[in-house]
């Protein structure tokens, strides 16, 4: 798994390098944006297939939804509390 992760991150760093070399060209940025969207669609489509053929997930879809919601609420509430502290300590104009 570690090797996979390193490969993925190395590919992203390679991409950043390519991006820096290409520079700020509107046309290329647009094409890259469109390709990015398509690869995200493809990946989520593949994820859908994987989930659809996985009985363990299909039989537990309701509990998965509730778990997702609980984690979202935790992430949001935690962020809000930290942001509240940061705002009052460092950003609020006295």
């Amino acid at each position, binding site marked *: *798994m570690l090797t*996979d*992760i390193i*490969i*993925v*991150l190395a*590919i*992203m*760093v390679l*991409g*950043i390098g*390519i*991006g*820096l070399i290409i*520079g*700020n060209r509107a046309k*290329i*940025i647009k094409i*890259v944006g469109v390709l990015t969207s398509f690869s*995200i*669609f*493809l*990946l*989520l*489509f*593949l*994820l*859908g*297939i*994987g*989930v*659809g*053929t*996985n009985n*363990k*997930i299909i039989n537990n879809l309701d*509990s998965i939804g509730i*778990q*997702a*919601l*609980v*984690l*979202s609420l*935790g*992430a*949001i*509430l*935690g*962020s*809000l*509390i*930290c*942001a*509240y*502290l*940061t*705002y009052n300590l*460092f*950003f*609020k104009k006295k």
Partner: protein
Amino acid sequence: MKGSLIILSFFVLGLILGLTRFLPESLLESDFSIYALYLLMLLVGIGIGTDRNSWKVIREINIKIVLVPISVIVGSLLGVSAFSALLSNISIGEAMAVGAGFGYYSLSSVMITEFHSDTLGVIALLSNIIREILTLLATPLFVKYFGKLAGIASGGATAMDTTLPIIVRYSGKEYAIISVFSGIVLTILVPVIVPLILQFL
């Protein structure tokens, strides 16, 4: 919102094809999604590299601003850890991997699927989409009770694009740069922090 609906519809389309086993068995069983992930990571990298605006925003900043994404990271990870106590099926580490998506549902769910499991990947997808939708709906309320950084914090990685308009509307234009900065930093950190957490599971 429109973007997340399109993405969800691709997911649902795949789900239906998988459920009905409409596709040839060889396609259903073979897994070439890791190569699609490689392609996506290359494109995400190129996107970051070519976008001079994001580098400019980062350079122009007063050091205090880094506290914003740090608050989001610390808050998200502590929040999901605490709430994972309510869930018997999810360990703290798994909850943190989901939370480390910071709303960037497409990338975080795919990485978690590849490096951990389909089940947690789906939880990450739904959880991070819910995060974006709740931010879009409830930012006025969040700003009222938690201060002007609230929408930026709740939006996480999406504060640079999809949730930016609502954040600017309720916190004010002077928070736009802070919002974009925080969103960019979190977007860049998602593909680093998510695998890092999964590594320790």
